[in-house]
């Protein structure tokens, strides 16, 4: 007898893509079909069958089998369309599987979106009750945790204001606060952290972490690799509707990033309409460049790394602030950097194509995977035109050579950066006077290029 919280066996979901038919031979056929169609359609309707047509089968999820033990926090990653959301929708009973089955033990709470059912005309207080009850909370539970929810959302003063007058930040905070106070034994979460400002995102992550520590079972779908590695010890990687890897998050995220399934050394948007941005500016490409200029996804720790943002300014006359963020594979936000090129500082930009490249010095980053997010602000007033996380990723490789920060030492060296600093060691001898060393020992010429 199993004691899994979630046990999925061969889950699959088939969709039918119906193409418009266009095979009428003559006008008479077409007319005849037009008149008989409603009757044929009505028959199908009664039997609950889908409309005919050149139906093409498409499996959004196939043969998904896995087990989750009580208290486990499991991440689910994969590209858009890999089947992550379909899997979650099946487990939350929003849609039925086409094959296979799953058993879930304990009360299930799901969070596919924050603020589901929020009504703009209702007040904050009313929406807490409405949304809580939609998420499956009992009225007494909501009442009991009401003060906690409101305190978490920081909207005490506006409780009796219709939420349509809330700022988007307040709205999101209140919506997440309700969800965060669900008390299910099994929690299924989809990408809800992709909202709000960074301070709020951090708060959400902290809350998720706390929920995980409470011993609840959590399935967490996300594109946010740092969040995945931070929250989930174990991760499932989906590709093309199948689970292709199931293991420790570090390893699975590494596979995802390096296998070309996820982010890579260069990402180019060929269709401007699909690219991040708006009518003012569009991101066209992000590349990781080695000192030689070639795009690369693996660099020696001693080499500088260029992060190149290519973008198109569609509306002239604004000051642009391209920037990027760097996270490591443990989810730590290492730093962000804004374009400081003096040639354009405070200058408005004519329309056209640009690249902005920032050079991260060698002997500065730590070894491992670095995940880059690219953004662009315009001013004044400050407007974030886009911020695309996890656009590219590259590996920093530390050699065992002596001219690195490692200095020939073996083993793991902790820390999010690994700058090679200029160390000076003086020997004072037994009597406290500086002693000159033999000439062969020190060559202080190769200091860090920071």
């Amino acid at each position, binding site marked *: 007898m199993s004691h899994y919280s979630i046990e999925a066996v061969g889950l699959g979901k088939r*969709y039918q893509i119906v193409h418009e038919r266009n095979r009428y031979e003559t006008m008479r056929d077409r007319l005849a079909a037009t008149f008989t169609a409603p009757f044929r359609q009505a028959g199908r*309707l*009664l039997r*609950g069958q*889908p409309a005919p047509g050149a139906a093409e089968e498409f499996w959004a999820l196939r043969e998904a089998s896995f087990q989750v033990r009580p208290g486990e926090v499991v991440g689910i990653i994969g590209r858009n369309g890999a089947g992550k959301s379909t899997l979650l*929708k*099946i*487990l*939350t*009973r*929003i*849609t*039925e*599987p*086409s*094959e*296979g*089955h*799953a*058993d*879930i*033990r*304990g*009360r*299930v709470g*799901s969070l*596919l*979106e924050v603020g*589901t*059912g929020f*009504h703009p*005309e*209702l007040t904050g207080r*009313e929406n807490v*009750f*409405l949304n809580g*009850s*939609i*998420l*499956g*909370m*009992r*009225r007494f*539970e909501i009442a009991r945790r009401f003060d906690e929810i409101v305190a978490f959302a920081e909207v005490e003063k506006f409780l009796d204001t219709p939420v349509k007058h809330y700022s988007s930040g307040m709205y999101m905070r209140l919506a997440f606060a309700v969800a965060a106070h669900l*008390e*299910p*034994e099994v929690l299924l979460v989809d990408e809800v952290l992709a909202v709000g400002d960074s301070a709020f995102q951090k708060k959400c992550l902290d809350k998720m972490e706390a929920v995980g520590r409470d011993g609840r079972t959590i399935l967490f779908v996300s594109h946010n690799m740092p969040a995945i590695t931070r929250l989930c010890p174990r991760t499932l990687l989906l590709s093309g509707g199948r689970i292709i890897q199931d293991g420790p998050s570090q390893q699975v995220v590494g596979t995802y990033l390096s296998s070309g399934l996820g982010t890579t050394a260069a990402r180019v948007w060929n269709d401007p309409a699909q690219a991040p941005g708006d009518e003012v500016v569009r991101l066209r490409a992000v590349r990781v460049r080695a000192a030689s200029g070639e795009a690369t996804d693996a660099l020696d720790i001693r080499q500088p790394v260029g992060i190149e943002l290519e973008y198109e300014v569609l509306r002239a006359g604004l000051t642009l602030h391209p920037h990027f963020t760097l996270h490591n594979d443990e989810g730590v936000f290492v730093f962000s950097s804004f374009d400081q090129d003096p040639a354009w500082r405070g200058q408005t930009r004519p329309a056209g194509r640009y690249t902005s490249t920032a050079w991260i010095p060698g002997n500065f980053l730590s070894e491992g995977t670095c995940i880059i997010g690219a953004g662009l602000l315009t001013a004044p007033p400050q407007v974030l035109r886009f911020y695309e996380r996890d656009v590219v990723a590259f590996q920093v490789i530390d050699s065992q050579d002596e001219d690195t920060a490692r200095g020939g030492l073996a083993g793991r060296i902790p820390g999010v950066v690994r700058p090679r600093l200029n160390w000076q060691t003086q020997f004072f001898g037994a009597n406290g006077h500086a002693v000159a060393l033999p000439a062969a020992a020190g060559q202080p010429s190769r200091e860090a290029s920071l």
Partner: protein
Amino acid sequence: MLTEVQARRAATGEAPVLRIEPSRGWSALRLRELWEYRELLFFFVWRDVKVRYKQTVLGAAWAILQPFFTMVVFSLIFGRYAKIDSDGLPYPIFSYAALVPWTFFATGLQQATAGMVTHANMLKKVYFPRMALPIAKVLAGVVDFSLAFVVLIGMMLYYGIVPTINTVWVPVLLLLALVTSLGVSLWMAAINVRYRDVGYLVPFIVQFWMYATPVVYPASIFPEPWRSLYGLNPMAGVIEGFRWALLGTDTAPGPLIGLSAGVAVVLLVSGAFYFRRMERTFADVA
């Protein structure tokens, strides 16, 4: 609830297991589950009632204005000019007594049908027994009905109509209207998710159905046995019943109402099964 679950687990040594698997053919109605979600049903009704007249100047007065002005227009056209028979009653109260339950039925049907589409996002993002949505939409109409009913009582006083003991049947007749409205709504709502044609069809249905129902004329214009067969339209039973219970029309509509009740129940049960059959694809096609 968590403690409830824990208690149950302590008692049985095992947490409740939810099995998720494909369903085939006609499925059970799962009324027990619907009952477990009664609080959500309450919140849906409460939300609809609260929100319905938000940001309107006249607010809940709309619940009265609609049937009232329809009654005024009908009284002028059908009562004064067309001189349609009204079972010996003043035409205004004759038609208003029919318009109150009719408006309840029609509004419920329209709201419930549209509700599946306006709340499509909710269907795609969270699980709850789908039937709670149309049920809530129809139930929310009871508030409007009550307001309009108060005006009906006022009109009875004005025309000096003394209520009889038969008034006690009004709640039963309201229930019959509710069952009819919900039955048709379940059919329409389920089809509407996939075929938005229904959104255009329902206003026509409501219009034609009203003229097929004794709203502007009495059922007594038909001789027996056709009059009793008129009960095949359940709203005919509801409206003839209302006039009989409140206004004391002499046609005790026994067989007519019996037939209506039967048809209403068939509509509701078949609608519920059809809805359950279709609901498994709602999230995919909504």
